[in-house]
């Protein structure tokens, strides 16, 4: 199986701080990896480096076959990133936002509707300004925005945060579906019990490096 993420001794600096300090990790296609670690361990930064948003200053990093030292842009179109922020235009209606996101990733407007339905955002909410949604509903719209791009590599930062029980199960189901259809999923989460159910591998980061790795299940 080819590796989707292949990091060797990666150092990355953001804002004058070494967010990754020599990270070695390899993630294979179809894996569901849960990232753990205390605050500031480098979980978010790892996801952003994978997405090509933070440049690497040392080591070798390969994502989806692209060498991040040469080209941080090309892999992005195959990657879906759900950050801490939801990346939502809060003034827009849910449907308008989704239409824009779909068009921006080259998907059809119909895909946007399907993605919203999949996340359980009902038609009733489509003509409501995102501003008026609850935190959980916003998170669902954010996940739907990501789903619409049909990424090969899913990078999610605390995706379960703000979601209710039903939402979490829904998300787990979506992630399992994605992995079984050949996508790779990496998500950061503190919640050990919950994630046990879907993660095929648990990786712990500490101080910008790999500290524990449960290995491929």
């Amino acid at each position, binding site marked *: 199986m080819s590796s989707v993420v292949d990091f060797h001794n990666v150092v990355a600096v953001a804002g*004058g*701080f*070494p967010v990754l*300090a*020599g990270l070695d990790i390899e993630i294979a296609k179809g894996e569901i990896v849960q990232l753990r670690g205390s605050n500031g361990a480098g979980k978010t930064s790892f996801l952003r480096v994978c997405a090509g948003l933070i440049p690497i200053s040392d080591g070798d990093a390969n994502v989806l076959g692209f060498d991040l030292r040469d080209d941080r842009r090309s892999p992005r179109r195959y990657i879906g990133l759900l950050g801490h922020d939801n990346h939502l235009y809060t003034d827009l209606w849910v449907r308008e936002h989704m239409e824009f996101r779909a068009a921006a990733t080259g998907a059809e407007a119909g895909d946007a509707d399907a993605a919203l339905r999949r996340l359980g955002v009902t038609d009733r909410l489509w003509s409501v300004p995102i501003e008026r949604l609850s935190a959980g509903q916003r998170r669902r719209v954010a996940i739907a925005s990501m789903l619409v791009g049909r990424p090969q590599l899913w990078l999610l930062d605390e995706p379960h945060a703000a979601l209710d029980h039903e939402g979490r199960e829904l998300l787990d189901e979506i992630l399992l579906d994605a992995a079984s259809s050949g996508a790779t999923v990496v998500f950061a989460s503190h919640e050990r019990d919950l994630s046990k159910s879907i993660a095929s591998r648990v990786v712990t980061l*500490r*101080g*910008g490096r790999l*500290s524990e790795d449960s290995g491929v299940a």
Partner: protein
Amino acid sequence: MTQVPDSRHMTATTATRVLGTVALVAVVLMGLLGLVVSPADVVQGQAVRMLYLHVPSIWIAYGAFVLTSFSSALFLFRSRHRHDGGRHHDRLAGSAAEVGVVFAGVTLVTGMLWGRVTWGTYWQWDARLTTTVLLFVTYLGYLALRRLPADPVIRGRRAAVMALISFVNVPIVHFSVDWWRTLHQKASLSVGRRPEITGEMYWTLLYSTLAVTIVASWLIVHRYRVIRLEELRDEEALEALIASRLREDDVQA
């Protein structure tokens, strides 16, 4: 300038010590020539002595801004091929802009005082003064952008783009202000005609330009090295942080 002192000498090297001495002597000589030896102008009287500072300062300010733009362009488009990631160009752009702003300030001060004597007012909407004041503020903005805390590469790129924007704007500002002032009020312009400078005055002016250029180069070289030191300090702090992250790992693992 490319060879940064091997951190033993802080910002001075033998070469720049010599340059500094030369600059000091040149300035003393410039003062003597400009203020004592050269004669007063027939039309302008003593006021002509202001030009020995004013004109070289304009030249330095413009020259420094051109250097900033040139280095910024190299930083943006040529840094891939350099092992330092173009930092050299970035440092040069930053130090030149700062020195340029200082001399643009000198240009404005001397220009206004010259105007006080020649026109009777500190400020005329003279094309050159107006252009200079706009450039002065433009590059103050550029320096403000450089001072913001940010990743050095991000900050360097932002500043470099701003330098390019400012640079393409220089001729636009120049021509528009020039047009503006020549399209009407022709009279006020001819009142303030700069004198025909010949003979001793000419040589004094030429010499002053040389002296001020030496001073400016000394300043740019030293500012460049201070920026280099700042970067060294940041790099050292970063290495310490990386080391502490590695220890953090050992202790807890």
